[in-house]
């Protein structure tokens, strides 16, 4: 509300978000692509959030213009989707919307099978010539796995076409009858669920789940992040680490004793010491990790002073880590255009690697370093 006019203005999302967050002791990110429920959970006993609170947060982020028309709908009484348990000989496949079945996919699922994991297959149920058919349109591989695992009953979430017929549901004119209409719904829903509206599990989410289940490599990598002052994050915020996949690759690099994470840790420590607030910058810490490893392989010892003097030189010359890696890549490309290289680098990590060696040799030069493939 304006101080001067006392009028309430148009919907302002940031104002609404701020207002909503006032009721929480620990604020959290509310963005279009992610409401940070992990941080939000810290406001609740046992870290368990009522769905109603998440629903309110969603409404605020999307705003009133994107809110659907208000209605009340009891799907159990008013809808045609229901749950039931079925016997094996009641279940069918209609290849109109399931064009094949993949034995190797079933075998893959089997390798990771657990009776607590299957989701409920989706189907349409319709009576034709006095036979009740339950056609699975989603989860037909899973249901075959259940059979192979000795299940005697099968959970099914089904669209009750018989009930639709009984209620005289109007069939759009492009369909011959209600069964055609139901098949169309099943096919459309299958594409909706499995393709169009599928939200892929991001590397960050996968990492956080693996951390929750105490996967040893993930826990170890996370310990390194914490020890060097970083935390895995979805977005590049202060002290955040967002490059999960690249991090896993560099973490896996071993030294002569087979120890993982050594170069990863030193590279992150280098960045934190040099740029304490900045999020981890991929093309700074990754080429540094490669440099530490190459030095060890070739027998060059890099003392702590090396990290200090290189860091200070980079700050003096280029500033923040993003500007630094951009400038280092530019140095590489300038040299490429001016002098040409017999074997140009094909990846940024190696372009920056070569540029780091070049800058250190030309501007500091206290220690010897490996010879860069592209020298300038």
């Amino acid at each position, binding site marked *: 509300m*304006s*101080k*001067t006019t006392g009028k309430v203005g*148009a*919907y*302002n*999302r*940031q*104002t609404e*978000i*701020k207002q909503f*967050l006032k009721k929480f002791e620990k*604020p959290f990110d509310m*963005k279009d692509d992610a409401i940070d429920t992990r941080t939000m959970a810290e406001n609740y006993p046992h870290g368990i959030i009522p769905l109603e609170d998440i629903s309110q947060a969603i409404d605020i982020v999307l*705003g009133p213009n994107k809110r659907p028309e208000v209605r009340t709908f009891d799907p159990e009484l008013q809808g045609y989707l229901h749950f039931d348990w079925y016997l094996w000989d009641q279940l069918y496949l209609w290849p109109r919307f399931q064009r094949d079945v993949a034995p190797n996919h079933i075998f893959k699922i089997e390798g990771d099978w657990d009776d607590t994991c299957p989701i409920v297959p989706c189907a349409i149920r319709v009576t034709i010539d006095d036979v009740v058919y339950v056609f699975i349109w989603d989860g037909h591989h899973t249901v075959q796995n259940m059979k192979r695992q000795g299940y005697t009953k099968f959970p099914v979430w089904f669209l009750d076409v018989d009930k639709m017929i009984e209620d005289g549901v109007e069939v759009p004119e492009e369909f011959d009858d209600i069964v055609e209409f139901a098949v169309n719904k099943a096919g459309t829903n299958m594409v909706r669920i499995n393709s169009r509206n599928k939200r892929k599990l991001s590397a960050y989410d996968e990492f956080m789940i693996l951390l929750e289940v105490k996967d040893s490599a993930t826990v170890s990598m996370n310990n390194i992040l914490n020890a060097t002052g970083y935390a895995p994050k979805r*977005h*590049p*915020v*202060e002290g955040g680490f967002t490059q999960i996949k690249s991090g896993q690759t560099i973490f896996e690099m071993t030294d002569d004793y087979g120890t993982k994470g050594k170069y990863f840790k030193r590279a992150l420590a280098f960045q934190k010491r*040099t*740029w*304490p*607030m*900045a999020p981890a910058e991929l093309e700074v810490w990754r080429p540094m990790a490669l440099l530490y490893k190459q030095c060890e392989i070739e027998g060059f010892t890099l003392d702590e002073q090396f990290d200090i003097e290189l860091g200070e030189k980079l*700050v003096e010359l*280029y*500033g*923040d*880590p*993003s*500007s630094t890696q*951009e*400038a280092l890549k530019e140095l590489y490309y300038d040299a490429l255009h001016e002098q040409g290289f017999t074997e140009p680098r094909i990846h940024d990590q190696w372009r920056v690697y070569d540029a780091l060696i070049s800058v250190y040799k030309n501007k500091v030069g206290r220690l010897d370093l490996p010879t860069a493939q592209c020298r300038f």
Partner: protein
Amino acid sequence: MKLLYVKICPFYKKHPDLYEPACKVGITGHPEVRLGVYQNSYSHLNHTATFDYVWAGDTRNINNIEKTLKTQLDMSIEKDGRGHSEWITGSIGMVLEQINDTIEGYRYNVTPIGEEISIDNLDKLNLGVDKT
């Protein structure tokens, strides 16, 4: 060379008791043009468009600090509605503290100019810009 600037809402600047604290954080390589755009909305008799706080640096550092600040100040930046974008509501002191901490913590190569900049003293920036 580019500039990072903080421009305080002229109403709040003149009458902090009557108006909400708000400012814009922006960057420009052509301060004379940007000041001209701001001046368009007000008579020069009542208000001279001014950058209240200014930092100068190379294009890369200025572009990157803007990106960082937009992320950090996200919760305070109004986004909805034409012309609302970039306005930050809340304490000016908080915004300046955030900028100074960010410059220090990210080690941005930018230099504070140390005085307000308007069209009247633009030559002090020595950016080689054409004021005409």
